């Protein structure tokens, strides 16, 4: 028994299930229609994002190519034809006003939106879980320090400060900046929830049992308590994804997000707002993509949990 071995375990991924159950879980998921469909859709989106230039090549429309012929400039730029200008040429229609191809923009937008939303979710979850659990577990000065930092970050009206900070930062790599800023302001929300639940769980007898088994604090927190937080975490993280797509949209809309003309789903949804009555497809298409992505993530999350939970029974 060495101390080094301890710290290594802490650094490792929290609560890895036994390897054999990995195969069992995979097997269970393969037999689950909803899980298969969700995975397929997510794969499709990822593929779309990767192959965006290919899609542009095939349809012949880049994400920023104006097609004034596809819209009626006399009518404020409403797309010609029904359903937002859906045609053989533009399979998902065109944007009102300037006639950019929606399919191309969706594909390119997936790159930015998913990168930002997923990365920000991952980062906030990581920070929120780690710091929230430590605060909840220690309840001493560590809690005080972490809580005051959380209070401080949460005390700022996030949007105002994101704008102030982002607009004064150099242009640089916008998506990365966005991820960082969103995460910095976003993690305390999750952390507080995690902290509360950790405080409750830390007093449970099984934690004491694990401590008696020689678990280091890190192991106690991440291997014993964390699995018991799973339900809340799954809900909060899956819902964080559309939330962050929305934040990205809002920030882009306010001009501190992704620099145009780079498309993003959030931007598309934000700019579709005014057109809800005239060209509902303009909102419906990116909205549907976002919804299905989130739905797939949630379903997959749920099914994964069920598969892990089922153990011997079921």
């Amino acid at each position, binding site marked *: *028994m*060495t*101390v080094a*071995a*301890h710290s290594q*375990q802490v650094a490792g991924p929290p609560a890895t*299930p*036994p390897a*054999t*159950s990995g195969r069992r879980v995979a097997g269970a998921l393969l037999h689950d229609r909803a899980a298969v469909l969700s995975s397929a859709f997510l794969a499709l989106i990822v593929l779309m994002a990767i192959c965006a230039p290919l899609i542009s090549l095939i349809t012949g429309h880049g994400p920023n190519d104006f097609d004034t012929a596809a819209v009626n400039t006399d009518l404020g730029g409403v797309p010609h034809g029904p359903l937002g200008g859906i045609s053989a040429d533009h399979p998902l229609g065109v944007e009102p006003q300037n006639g950019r191809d929606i399919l191309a923009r969706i594909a390119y937008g997936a790159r930015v939106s998913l990168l930002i939303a997923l990365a920000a979710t991952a980062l906030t979850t990581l920070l929120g879980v780690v710091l929230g659990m430590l605060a909840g577990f220690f309840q001493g000065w560590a809690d005080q320090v972490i809580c005051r930092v959380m209070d401080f970050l949460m005390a700022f009206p996030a949007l105002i400060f994101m704008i102030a900070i982002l607009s004064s930062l150099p242009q640089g790599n916008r998506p990365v900046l966005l991820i960082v800023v969103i995460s910095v302001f976003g993690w305390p929300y999750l952390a507080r929830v995690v902290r509360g639940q950790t405080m409750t769980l830390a007093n*449970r*007898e*099984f934690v*004491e*049992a*694990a*401590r*008696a*088994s*020689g*678990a*280091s604090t890190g*192991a106690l927190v991440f*291997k*014993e308590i964390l*699995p*018991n937080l*799973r339900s809340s975490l799954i809900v909060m993280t899956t819902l964080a994804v559309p939330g962050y797509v929305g934040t990205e949209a809002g920030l882009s809309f306010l001009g501190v997000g992704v620099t145009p003309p780079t498309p993003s789903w959030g931007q598309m949804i934000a700019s579709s707002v005014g057109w809800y009555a005239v060209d509902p497809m303009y909102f419906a298409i990116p909205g549907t993509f976002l919804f299905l992505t989130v739905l797939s993530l949630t379903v997959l999350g749920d099914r994964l949990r069920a598969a892990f*939970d089922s*153990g*011997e*029974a079921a």
Partner: protein
Amino acid sequence: MTLLRANDLTKRFVSRGPLGAKTAFTAVDRVSFDVRLGETLAVVGESGSGKSTTARMIAKLLEPSEGTLEFEGEDVTRAKGAALARFRGNVQVVFQDPFSSLNPRHTVERILMAPLLYQGIAPDGGRRAHAKELMERVGLDPDHSLRYPAQFSGGQAQRIGIARALAVNPKLVICDEAVSALDVSVQAQVIELLRRLQRESGFSYVFIAHDLAVVRQIAQRVAVMSEGRIVELGTTAQVFGDPKDEYTRTLLAAIPRIDPEWERRRRERV
């Protein structure tokens, strides 16, 4: 040789009334005893007399309000870091409430591997095999290794707790009502296992129990607790044969027995 020594351990619980008024309650009051290497010290006594609290303190799960604790001659009352880790490796606990002490989100296998994992021990043949072997030892079906605690009966859960304590080779095992939920035949098996381990590996036990017959079987010395204090401490024979304390005498008198008549008839039939 003394393995563990408790000096004047005291625990006060402060509870808050509905209006925030504090009341302190002394659950354990200046308790001193020692546990020798390879010995079983039984602790018996009234329900609520502070046995579990004492056990928690000597397992370093509860900070004593007063008093000190020595392990292998070293003061571990305030042990931290490596010293504490060493202590944890040497002292294991079996908890009174079987379900509460098992993580509901872990499989039995994971629960049994926990001490190995946390103490960085890799047994020959791997941890998983070790876990299965432990299950077999305490009479559980190794095929159930992927079940979760809720899928077991009370006695089975208790055996999981025992198996966990035996997973690493501890020097001292604190058993808080470790066999109370087991039927007599399994109980006999488990007790036999404990005794064998004691013989072969020199384990020491602090054995908290209500079943005085079991205590008599397994313990070399007995401490009797009442209202937070040790009222009597002596060899098993001495305590059972010639109890000094009034409470001990009441206790011994209250042991339920099978009708001797039935007993006799049964023996005759065999």
